């Protein structure tokens, strides 16, 4: 990831939400959310269960479309893209990390990670080569051929992170990445996300854990489907995550 060139200052934000509302029947899971995430940021979206953070993740990840409002991911207006095009957007732009790891039973770590680029059209040998690199980067170079049942929870989540960052996506969405882990493994995972962020990846961590959120450079608090607080918007000190353009303001 260190090979990624510096972003030009005019680069567009990775995520732009404007007045995004999502309703399920009569229930509004998200109401009028506005949010801009720039390249290279590391932020937490935090809130209790039912606050709408999963809905926000689904919308940012283009897994779901908003009922109202506009969503722009890496400059693409989601409303203007078909389901096929959204799939391609996810394949190239967004990496996902889930609480439950989603590693297939009986599949060695290397192949699980290589699947991260399965839908990118790259040949298998290249996928596997990149997967090995990614696994080494997350500190699992000695676990390439281990199957999920031979790995600890923390290792599983690191495999899942390696899969998510395989194609160097500009945006990494982590949904409760430490939710199924003990605190030590959780700390390692958060540290890993920090490292990725320092190497230039935009990382969004969705969590209900306010301690984790407080330790990240930016914190967006959700409550009852509304953004209650945004540390960037509230004049928080510019963090090391901000791109030069942002820092210059």
């Amino acid at each position, binding site marked *: 990831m260190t090979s990624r060139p510096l972003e030009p200052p005019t680069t*567009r*934000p990775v995520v*732009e*939400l*404007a*007045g995004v509302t999502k309703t399920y029947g009569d229930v509004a899971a998200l109401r009028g959310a*506005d*949010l*801009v995430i*720039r390249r290279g940021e590391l932020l937490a979206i935090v809130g209790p269960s039912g606050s709408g953070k999963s809905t926000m993740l*689904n919308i940012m*990840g283009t*897994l*779901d479309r908003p009922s109202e409002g*506009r969503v*722009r991911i*890496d*400059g*693409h*207006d989601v409303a*203007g*893209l078909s*389901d*096929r*095009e959204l*799939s*391609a*957007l*996810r*394949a*190239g*732009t*967004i990496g*996902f990390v*889930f609480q*439950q790891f*989603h590693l*297939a*039973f*009986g*599949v060695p770590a290397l192949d699980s990670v290589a*699947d*991260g680029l*399965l*839908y*990118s*059209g*790259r*040949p*298998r040998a290249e996928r596997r080569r990149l997967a090995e690199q990614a696994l080494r980067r997350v500190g699992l170079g000695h676990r390439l051929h281990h199957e999920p049942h031979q790995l600890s929870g923390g290792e599983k989540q690191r495999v899942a992170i390696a*899969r998510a960052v395989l194609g160097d996506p500009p945006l990494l969405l982590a949904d409760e990445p430490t939710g199924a882990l003990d605190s030590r493994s959780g700390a390692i995972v958060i540290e890993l996300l920090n490292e990725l962020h320092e190497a230039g990846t935009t990382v969004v961590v969705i969590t209900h854990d306010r301690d984790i959120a407080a330790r990240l450079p930016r914190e967006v608090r959700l409550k009852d489907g509304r*953004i209650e607080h*945004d540390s*960037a*918007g509230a004049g928080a000190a510019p963090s090391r995550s901000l791109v030069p353009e*942002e820092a210059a*303001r």
Partner: protein
Amino acid sequence: MTLTNAPRELERRADADPPRKPRPARMRPADVLRVGGSGLRSRPMRVFLSALGIAIGIAAMVGVVGISTSSTEDLDRRLSALGTNLLTVTPGQSFTGGAAHLPAESVGMIGAMDHVDSVSAIGRTSAKVYRNDRTPKQETGGLSVAAARTDLPESVGAEIVDGRWLNAANSRYPSVVLGPKAAEQLGVHEAGPDVRVWLGGRWFTVVGLLAPNQLVPAMDSSALVGWSVAKSELGFDGYPTTIYTRADESSVGDVQAVLGATANPETPSETTVSRPSDALAAKEATDDALSGLLLGLGGVALLVGGVGVANTMVISVLERRSEIGLRRSLGATRGQIRTQFLAEALLLSALGGLGGVLLGIAVTGGYASYQGWPSVVPVWAMAGGVGATLVIGGLAGFYPAVRAARLPPTEALATT
């Protein structure tokens, strides 16, 4: 940057050139196969059982086709060994309803025809044959006594297993050649100067024993004596009752057409011309009804196997919702999910189809070798078997695959 800026900024950017729309990449065929197969590898037992359903259906159909083809092949080989160019002429009913007879000179007239290789005849006598002179008269055992010309073996393809055939010398004396059934009934196991049977009220020496003859099965239960001795000792009238003719292979039809008229020019309608190889083929063909029934049963088994595959696939899709969600999050399009499950169903049934074809070949081979037949499984049956399973797999996998593809990613990911 503040929250209040965000909508305005979004509006402004909308005016700018939109970035190029992302386009999904095509999956390589090898990847499609690998992904389709990955679902099978993780559940080997279930895969085995549902492939077995298909395999049984295909094996039944391939086996039925294989066995009937092997049997036909065996018949063809036997017939070509026996020759399909044998024609027989027998007297039919006379116009007045009485038994007709062929003219005594008919054998010579047929022998003079073009395209006739050989001709011979037998003439049935009213004499009976017994084991010895003390056997009760009514115990004929269904055996008949016929006069045979010395050139008969050449025409009917008779084989001698012991002793020798009638010749110019011994056919004037009380000598007899026995068909295999006749020999068995009379308790004769070998030919020889001191082996005798009681025939037409006197002793006849058994000079030869015949091998079974498939083209002329009537010979098997006959005792054959010389033409002249039959006339002198058994009251034989000298009229042939069956004329055996070998025609050129290429002219069998032509010869058959005029054979009756040549044998009995005065009343050709009183002759019956037949081709024994046809009768033999027709007898074997009666097995077709049974084959059809078995083929139908195989079809039902295949259908049940197809339902099994559909069932497996429906369950597979239900169980793997989170995998579907993950794949959608990794960038799989609906079409790629559909392709994955369709490929899985096709692989599953192709596995069954291949297994079924192998099983069918094994069944055919086993049964054919048990029957002493050559083992033949037509290529079209094997290809058809595998092809049928692919159609079934496609039909069985289509609905589950469409369901998998329609699953919204968020819903798929929510199930764990």
